[in-house]
């Protein structure tokens, strides 16, 4: 019963956040200085032409009315129509999702393997040389902006290979359905970029919480009853230590739906983030709103999933 009430409360809070995001973004963009109708009418656009376009797009109505219509459509799952391409925002986002999702999923797999692996190694061998160098690596990872890692990787791998006539790993996106091998080849550098930047946080989290967990009484109990060390560390220690990792994963994956824009730009993958940047350039309000809402929704859903995953991973956690 508690569980159900908890989930309901979280969903309600998520809806409030989403509503605030639509409200904020909508009104933010309707005080935008560049009027889309003026842009659409072109340089030689007469005032009549501008007024005509305004009427067609519904821009002549009061902002509050436009917002109401927008919310109404949104509740029916319709994100609106792009001012500029005339395409529906739903289909635009759907078309841009594959590169972004490829990037996030592959990246997440890599950074989880790397981050948790390094974290466990440096926790079980705390203060060893390996731990120290892992710590330094973590600090460098945290200190480097994503785009710098990406650019350096491009420079070190792609351009040096290209010098020797090997034209692999070019920064572009090939759909999985077209050629899985090429998809993999072109995704590998973006994945490594994303993983290098994120793995740092994960190994730090894993190391810290695994050290904490290994100091707990139940670990002593587990050792006392003669379990192998491997079983103690992985089944008993790591399981409890993974809770903060899961939180971070949820938050990261949610945020990256729109937030992978940097990696997408460096490797020219296309994707939701780059679509967002383009929409900013044109002041394409409904595309911007659509992407912001989808991202916010991903964050909200990820947060709820994380809270549920807590109680599964760590039996001591009670949802209240």
């Amino acid at each position, binding site marked *: 019963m508690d569980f159900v009430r908890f989930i309901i409360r979280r969903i309600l809070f998520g809806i409030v956040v989403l509503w605030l995001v639509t409200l904020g973004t909508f009104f933010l963009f309707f005080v935008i200085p560049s009027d889309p109708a003026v842009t659409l009418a072109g340089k030689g656009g007469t005032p009549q032409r501008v007024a005509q376009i305004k009427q067609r797009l519904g821009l002549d109505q009061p902002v509050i009315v436009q917002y109401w219509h927008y919310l109404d459509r949104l509740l029916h799952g319709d994100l609106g129509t792009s001012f500029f391409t005339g395409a529906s925002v739903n289909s635009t986002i759907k078309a841009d999702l594959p590169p972004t999702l490829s990037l996030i999923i592959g990246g997440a797999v890599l950074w989880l393997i790397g981050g948790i692996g390094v974290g466990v190694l440096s926790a079980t061998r705390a*203060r060893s040389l390996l731990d120290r160098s892992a710590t330094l690596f973590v600090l460098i990872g945290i200190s480097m902006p994503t785009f710098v890692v990406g650019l350096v990787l491009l420079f070190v791998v792609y351009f040096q290979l290209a010098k020797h006539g090997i034209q692999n790993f070019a920064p572009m996106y090939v759909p999985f359905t077209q050629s899985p091998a090429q998809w993999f080849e072109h995704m590998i550098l973006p994945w490594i970029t994303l993983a290098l930047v994120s793995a740092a946080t994960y190994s730090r989290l894993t190391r810290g919480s695994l050290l904490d967990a290994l100091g707990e009484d139940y670990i002593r109990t587990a050792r006392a009853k003669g379990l192998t060390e491997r079983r103690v560390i992985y089944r008993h220690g790591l399981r409890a230590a993974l809770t903060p990792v899961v939180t971070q994963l949820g938050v990261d994956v949610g945020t990256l739906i729109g937030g992978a824009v940097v990696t997408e730009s460096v490797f020219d993958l296309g994707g939701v983030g780059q679509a967002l940047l383009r929409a*900013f350039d044109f002041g394409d309000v409904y595309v911007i709103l659509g992407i912001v809402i989808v991202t*916010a929704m991903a964050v909200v859903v990820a947060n709820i999933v994380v809270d549920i995953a807590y109680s599964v991973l760590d039996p001591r956690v009670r949802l209240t």
Partner: protein
Amino acid sequence: MSLTEVQFTGATVDQAPSRAIQGRSPWQLAWRRLRSDRVAVASAIIIVLLCLVALAAPLIASLIGHPPAIQYPYGTTDQGLPKPPGGQFLLGTDNLGRDLLVRIVYGARVSLLVGLSSTFIATVLGVAVGLVAGYYGGVIDGVLARGMDVVLAFPYLVLALALVTVLGPSLWMVIAVIAFFSWAALARIVRGQTLSLKEKEYIEAARAIGASPLRIMVIDILPNVIAPVLVVATLLVPTAIVFESTLSYLGLGIQEPTASWGNILAGSQQFLPGAWWFLIFPAVALLITTLAFNLLGDGVRDAIDPGTERIFAARRRRRGIAVEQTQASAEAQQAGTAGGV
């Protein structure tokens, strides 16, 4: 430490050393720990040097004789490409024939200004909101705490981009946006601490003698929450610097011709195969700066709260503190090797 020495040598009062035993406040102790942390001291020195370089940027530019925004016709090769380091241009030039060294030096101004001032604003805002929410509780706390949750639940990069697009990219806009997305984490910490502190007897005493809420918050509670705030604030600076360079890289931060490490790096991408200096030098400058702040932040945390995990733990282990933990991890290590992890 001198106290234990006296006790263990069994000295009587009249044999006590002529130098009086000094009482040290926690802050003095923290300061001593920080000073003996070589990594933190080195980072602090690097940060001071960076600040000096940033302040002296016009001086450096005039010494070299290349103002930051001048595009030298001889600054590019015959094909119009950036020139490699050497000769007139110590670190080479960018694609417009401008002196890269001078632009990197000017970029330091932007990074440090954005990093420090957005952190300052976020800290003041976060502490104020956290104190008020924690102290008053009730409806005020409910509203403010929800506000923090909302800000923390925002997809911040996307919204930061949206804000900057609408309100126009400028230095102050970038600072404001970064501050807006940073205060909530601080506020949450301060609120938590305030919630527990306000139940203490000394606060009750202060209230009993008629101290105003403002006085209690500022004089009685604030000094007791300042330590974690200091730690988080130090670590916010590099985050803010990274954030700024990312915004500038995407073209939504500091605009040309003003130099920032982010927009220099953005410019370098097109000239990558050839012009390595265009990428490497600003990237190294950025890495040194954020690394120094991160290492200093870790040092400050260890100095203020010696119980936390230390990054370079050699010194503390030698002193025999945290023996228990070392033992525990030694056991784990031993067993870990046996288990073939």
